[in-house]
């Protein structure tokens, strides 16, 4: 079956990328317009895929040889993520019209953003592991190019290279997985593999499973690769919202969710996934508590929330993780874009120089608060529902309880750093800057409003989302089952009734109230921080460690330094003396002779 239109979500933004680049930097207005048109078109193509979310449409282009076929296919998961990528992508582009007004090299900026949107769609739509890796790397390349966008600033360049190298290192896990798959099956077809993971021997399967875990951890900035994401905040803020909060970093979670049925039975894998998720969620939340850079706080919070998703996959809650992914994409994009409006208005990212912005930026304040409440997990907003689902998945299924308790602690911390961030930025005594601050412009509002609406309402899609995933992921066992299907029968309408049912179920669950209590403790803890000073003092050490990223920054630096030093030291071997050069030939000859002698003897 040739469904050429499946290429549209990839092709339209890529065409736009070419168009913007060809226009050149002399016509910035045209560039803005073209970028908006193409990204909105891409969003439309993404939305147009929705009818295919519960059935499979495939596209197959044979490439021949070891390159197998280029495959695209739709199912609930891929369509959902395509929609997220294209829609939030178009909102970020619209936001950029204001945010990037008057910047240099607009062509490069928009070209890479559009290129990224297409690549992200490709990453989730393809069912060939080779091409998944190709798109995986392309998103990393765009991320690198956009982090290092202000490339006269050495910090931005360093951040970009760091992100590139770390995600590439992790990407090797995916690469080797794909190679193993091909070595044993002669194909890169993901669905064939998911249907029968035993085509590869158990040892290799376990290598693949952990390789994918490493790839996912690097891409989603999970423990121990989390350090690149905060440094990636040198990127322009719409890019941070799009790539480093709403889409690319989700690719790791997507990968784990996609391959969950194949690796489920690998011994130790699920526990490892849970621990990685838990550590990321907990450590990043602690770091968010002490950071003063607004974007860094949001970055740590992203790491932490991604940790929740990864944990959910490990706990067997694939659906919960994907549902939280959806909520998080919406509210985190909202928070980042809101932060972008604040930063654009004030010209600083330091929260100590903000404060009292409630009066000067009422619109931004309103939408930011919505996002923040969703992040903290306050009921009715989408973050609440999805987070509850994750914690319930973690408490059930015979998962280790201690991890679940630590996750609940993380929700409390989430609430604490959220309220700290909001109070530092919008409340309290304004510093000298805030009188000049101007509220978000037209284009910014256009982008922020739909996201704010989404934050209020996306949880209503729970039922349809579940139906779509359930009907199109044949190898996954989604955990919503026994209880709610009865509710569906009662409610009559299968999809919306389910939303109602799940909602009721969550509200009936005692753990929900426990979590809410923790959240409230978190909220209050920040407000009453002066009274808890002595308690906080005991955490000083933790704070210091958190600021140094718990030593991972040092490890990173050490590795980089070691490699650089080795490179520098090796330069001695290029002596420049002819005599030593000829001696090296002689040495090579001797070594080959000896090796051959040994080889022949054996």
């Amino acid at each position, binding site marked *: 079956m040739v469904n050429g239109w499946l290429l549209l979500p990839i092709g339209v933004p890529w065409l736009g990328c070419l168009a913007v680049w060809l226009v050149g930097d002399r016509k910035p207005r045209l560039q803005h317009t073209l970028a908006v048109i193409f990204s909105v078109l891409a969003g439309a193509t993404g939305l147009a895929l929705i009818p295919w979310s519960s059935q499979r449409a495939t596209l197959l282009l044979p490439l021949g040889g070891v390159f197998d076929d280029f495959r695209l296919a739709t199912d609930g998961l891929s369509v959902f993520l395509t929609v997220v990528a294209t829609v939030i992508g178009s909102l970020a582009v619209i936001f950029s019209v204001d945010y990037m007004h008057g910047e240099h090299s607009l062509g490069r900026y928009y070209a890479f953003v559009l290129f990224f949107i297409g690549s992200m769609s490709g990453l989730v739509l393809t069912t060939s592991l080779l091409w998944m890796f190709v798109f995986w790397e392309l998103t990393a390349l765009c991320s690198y190019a956009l982090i290092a966008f202000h490339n006269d600033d050495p910090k931005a360049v360093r951040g970009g290279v760091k992100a590139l190298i770390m995600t590439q290192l992790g990407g090797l896990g995916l690469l080797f997985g794909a190679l193993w798959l091909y070595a044993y099956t002669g194909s890169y077809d993901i669905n064939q593999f998911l249907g029968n993971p035993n085509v590869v021997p158990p040892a290799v399967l376990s290598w693949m499973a952990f390789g994918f875990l490493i790839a996912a951890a690097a891409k989603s900035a999970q423990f121990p690769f989390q350090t690149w994401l905060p440094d990636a905040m040198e990127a322009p803020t719409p890019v941070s919202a799009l790539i480093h909060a709403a889409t690319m970093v989700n690719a790791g979670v997507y990968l784990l969710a996609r391959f969950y049925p194949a690796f489920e039975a690998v011994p130790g894998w699920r526990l490892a996934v849970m621990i990685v998720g838990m550590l990321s969620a907990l450590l990043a939340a602690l770091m968010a508590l002490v950071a003063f850079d607004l974007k860094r706080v949001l970055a740590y919070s992203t790491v932490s929330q991604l940790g929740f998703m990864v944990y959910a996959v490990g706990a067997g809650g694939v659906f919960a993780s994907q549902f939280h992914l959806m909520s998080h994409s919406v509210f985190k994009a909202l928070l980042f874009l809101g932060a972008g409006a604040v930063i654009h208005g004030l010209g600083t990212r330091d929260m100590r120089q903000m404060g009292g912005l409630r009066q000067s930026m009422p619109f931004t304040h309103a939408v930011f608060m919505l996002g923040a409440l969703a992040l903290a997990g306050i009921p009715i907003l989408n973050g609440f529902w999805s987070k509850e689902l994750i914690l319930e998945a973690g408490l059930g299924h015979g998962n280790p309880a201690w991890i679940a308790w630590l996750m609940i602690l993380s929700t409390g911390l989430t609430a604490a750093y959220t309220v700290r961030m909001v109070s530092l930025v919008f409340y309290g005594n304004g510093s000298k800057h805030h009188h000049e601050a101007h509220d978000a412009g037209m284009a910014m509002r256009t982008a922020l409003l739909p996201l704010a609406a989404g934050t209020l309402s996306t949880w209503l899609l729970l039922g349809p989302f579940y139906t779509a995933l359930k009907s199109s992921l044949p190898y996954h066992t989604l955990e919503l089952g026994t209880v709610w299907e009865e509710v569906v029968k009662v409610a009559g309408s299968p999809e919306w009734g389910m939303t109602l049912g799940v909602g009721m179920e969550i509200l009936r669950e005692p753990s929900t109230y426990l979590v809410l209590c923790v959240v409230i403790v978190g909220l209050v803890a920040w407000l009453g921080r002066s009274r808890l000073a002595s308690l906080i003092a005991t955490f000083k050490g933790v704070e210091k460690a958190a600021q140094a990223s718990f030593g991972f920054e040092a490890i990173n630096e050490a590795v980089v330094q070691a490699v650089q030093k080795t490179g520098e030291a090796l330069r001695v071997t290029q002596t420049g003396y002819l005599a030593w050069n000829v001696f090296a030939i002689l040495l090579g*000859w001797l070594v080959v002779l000896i090796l051959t002698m040994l080889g022949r003897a054996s």
Partner: protein
Amino acid sequence: MVYALIGVGALGCAIAAVTTKRLLNSAIWLALTSALVALEMYLLGGPFIAVIELSVGAGLVTVLFVFAINLTGEESTPNAHPVLKGLALVCLLACLALVAYWVLPPTLVSPSNPDTQPLATIFWEGRRLDTWLQALLIFTGALTVLGLLRSTPQETDQKEENPDGLP
């Protein structure tokens, strides 16, 4: 036995050629080596190649060296660093010993029914591709030497500064 005598002579001349301080003497020792090698070739049954080695190897090449030494001038050549010398010698002897150990055991005897095609036929007919390529190589070499020895603006300047060609 004759082989051994001539061989040792050739090796001795070669050692002299590479250890002598003066370049001109070195070239002459090389010519002697060449002559002895030619003699060895003759004994092995290659009269043609012996003649050619004698005329080209001992004659032409020596002339070339003398010519080049005249152009560049004699220059005293100090000894290399002893560490390098020692390392080179050890490594070299190890290589040669390994090769000799491996190469020597099989029998080396001439077959009873030698192929007696004349050299001219082989050279001009059988391996005429090689011959053509030699012609091309000579052309290439000529181009290269012409290119290397052309005068360049910067260098004429330097010559005026240094009429003796000394640094």
